[in-house]
């Protein structure tokens, strides 16, 4: 096999769930690459397939009820076709995950230290005492005060922010090369969120790991991500550097997300510009472009929007867009219509 040029290389990933109501295509043909030391932000609304993707990368889908196809190459090893036992050894050691809700992701019956020690000893043949020292060390590094005392506390004795820090400590216990954070700050208050985002940034610099951050909050993405992948209906609809996505977005859905969000760094807008309608059901994904029933520019595609699935095409350097509108037209609409409205408040 040729040496892959990226640390993580996802090729044509499809994750489908057969259900009584029909086939749910949660992820339908996803491609992306990620280098060590870089951060990818995956943005999307509920049901867009972003969390299913993250579980897929960790190889956590049960083969009995999920059909996974495509390739997920982690440093050359394909996770999709690998033996589950082999994937299990990689999980925690080479890749780890930070979950949204640390209260439900930690076991309430065991101390925080016990859980970190357990994770560490699965992958490292060390004594309990050594592992505990390692756990204390990690807790200190993620900013928990008096780690030698708090290591024996139970999860409920920690505050929300501390629990999230402990989760990060657990995820980092084996120095993973790939870290996936699924809505890591959604359950937290803004001041705590700022602390956690800072911590994740500092730790990434220290460990030079690849980081995938999954969120619906564009502010969080702008703070952390180098590249941004926007998902809609199980597909990537726009991909580009963070600056490109925020300053020259070309997909009408991305425009809609930006218009839906009041911003503190600009003047007060009189009116938000929401996207009409609701996110699609994944059982009955709309024909053609999945976004067409909600798209204001659909009539300009000459009917192709309803019949033909648009391809993900490069429209600029490293900027991919899945849209029927001609590139020049998209750039014109953004410059002349959408952007002035978004900036009207400032």
């Amino acid at each position, binding site marked *: 096999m040729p040496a892959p040029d990226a640390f993580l290389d996802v090729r044509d990933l499809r994750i489908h769930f057969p259900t009584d109501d029909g086939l749910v295509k949660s992820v339908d043909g996803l491609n992306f690459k990620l280098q060590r030391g870089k951060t990818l932000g995956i943005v999307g*609304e*509920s049901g867009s397939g972003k969390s299913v993707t993250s579980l897929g990368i960790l190889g956590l889908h049960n083969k009995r009820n999920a059909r996974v196809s495509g390739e997920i190459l982690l440093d050359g090893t394909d996770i999709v076709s690998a033996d589950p036992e082999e994937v299990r050894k990689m999980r925690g050691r080479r890749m780890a995950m930070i979950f949204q809700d640390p209260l439900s992701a930690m076991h309430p019956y065991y101390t925080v230290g016990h859980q970190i020690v357990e994770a560490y000893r699965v992958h490292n043949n060390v004594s309990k005492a050594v592992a505990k020292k390692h756990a204390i060390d990690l807790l200190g*590094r*993620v*900013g928990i*005060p008096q780690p030698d005392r708090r290591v024996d506390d139970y999860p409920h004795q920690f*505050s*929300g*922010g*501390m629990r999230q820090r402990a989760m990060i400590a657990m995820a980092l216990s084996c120095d993973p090369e790939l870290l996936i954070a699924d809505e890591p700050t959604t359950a937290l*208050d*803004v*001041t*705590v*969120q*700022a*602390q956690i*985002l*800072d*911590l994740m940034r*500092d*730790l990434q610099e220290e460990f030079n790991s690849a980081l995938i951050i999954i969120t*619906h*909050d*564009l*502010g*969080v*993405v*702008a*703070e952390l*991500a180098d590249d941004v992948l926007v998902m809609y209906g199980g597909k990537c609809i726009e991909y580009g550097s*963070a*600056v490109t996505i*925020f*300053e020259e977005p070309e997909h009408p859905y991305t425009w*809609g*997300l*930006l*218009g*839906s*969000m*009041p*911003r*503190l*760094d600009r*003047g*007060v*807008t009189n*009116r*938000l*510009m*929401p*996207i*009409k309608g*609701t*996110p699609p059901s994944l059982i009955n994904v709309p024909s053609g472009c999945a976004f067409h029933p909600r798209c204001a520019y659909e009539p300009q595609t000459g009917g192709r929007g309803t019949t033909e699935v648009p391809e993900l095409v490069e429209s600029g350097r490293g900027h991919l867009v899945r849209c029927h509108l001609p590139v020049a037209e998209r750039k014109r609409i953004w410059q002349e219509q959408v952007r002035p409205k978004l900036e009207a408040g400032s």
Partner: protein
Amino acid sequence: MTESIAREGVATQTPSKEALLSVTGLQKHFPITKGLLKRQVAAVKAVDGIDFEVFKGETLGLVGESGCGKSTTGRLITRLAEPTGGKITFDGSDITHLKTGAMRPYRRDMQMIFQDPFSSLNPRHTVGAIVGAPFHIQGVKTEHGVKRAVQDLLKLVGLNPEHYNRYPHEFSGGQRQRIGIARTLALKPKLIVADEPVSALDVSIQAQVVNLLEDLQEELGLTYVVIAHDLSVVRHISDRVAVMYLGKIVEVADRESLYSNPRHPYTVALMSAVPVPNPRRRASNQRERVLLTGDVPSPIDPPSGCRFRTRCWKAQEICATTEPPLVVREGDAPGHQTACHFPVADNEEVVGRTKTA
């Protein structure tokens, strides 16, 4: 420049407004009991003496982090919880300790929108029954029958009136929130308390509901108290904003005044923590960010004096001994009240980012 004009405009307007709801010294202490005899050993001081007014036709935003007492405040003013102290005056009458029956006539005039559209609607009732319930409970006669009234309400909130016989599970989150809003509007209330009305919804749906709330306010002349933790949503929707910390209001002001010139250190920290969707400003955001250390202290045994002092970079001795009153500070717009001994000045160097880990 436009900003200063806008601020003056609001400032001259405010005193002429009439208060619909006024709250003084409002308190809610939840007792902690111990032993067989349920002896009270301590109390969670969820809301500990707050004063504010809500003027007719305005939107008051109530922001703060979890556990600051903002939701309890919402439940107290709608009298879903019994206050342990203070006074609530609604539309000229004292409703602080009214019993359920005596409270009922007032319930027509004050309604609540809840956060979670999945648990706030009875799954066994049709939309018609849910939205029509207020008419039956209050014994209100409708001109063309309840069904017609409900259908008009559904139309008003942007739902299809033909969905009268459907059940809540047939609707998406955003649509359910609209059903909740329709129910709230049934009796044409004067005051609506919305507790995190959009935080459970997707970004694109949030904007739809925010716009709907604004349209309804204009159309029906409603007064809102919006409780939320999202500072950008609150700024968008509110005329005035009150910031809460550990059961107290620490700062209250007109929207423009508060966001352009926050005086309380907590407000400053809170605002600087909001991630800004601009990747080019990432580096400068980090430098300007005020990182609070530690966690919010327990409301069972809050710090003496100013409650924020344990996390405040400006705290001095007086902060531990004397509680700062919520008053207008020198040079501030009228109505901009701050509870701080050392309010942050406009051009002040705020102690920058401190490394946590």
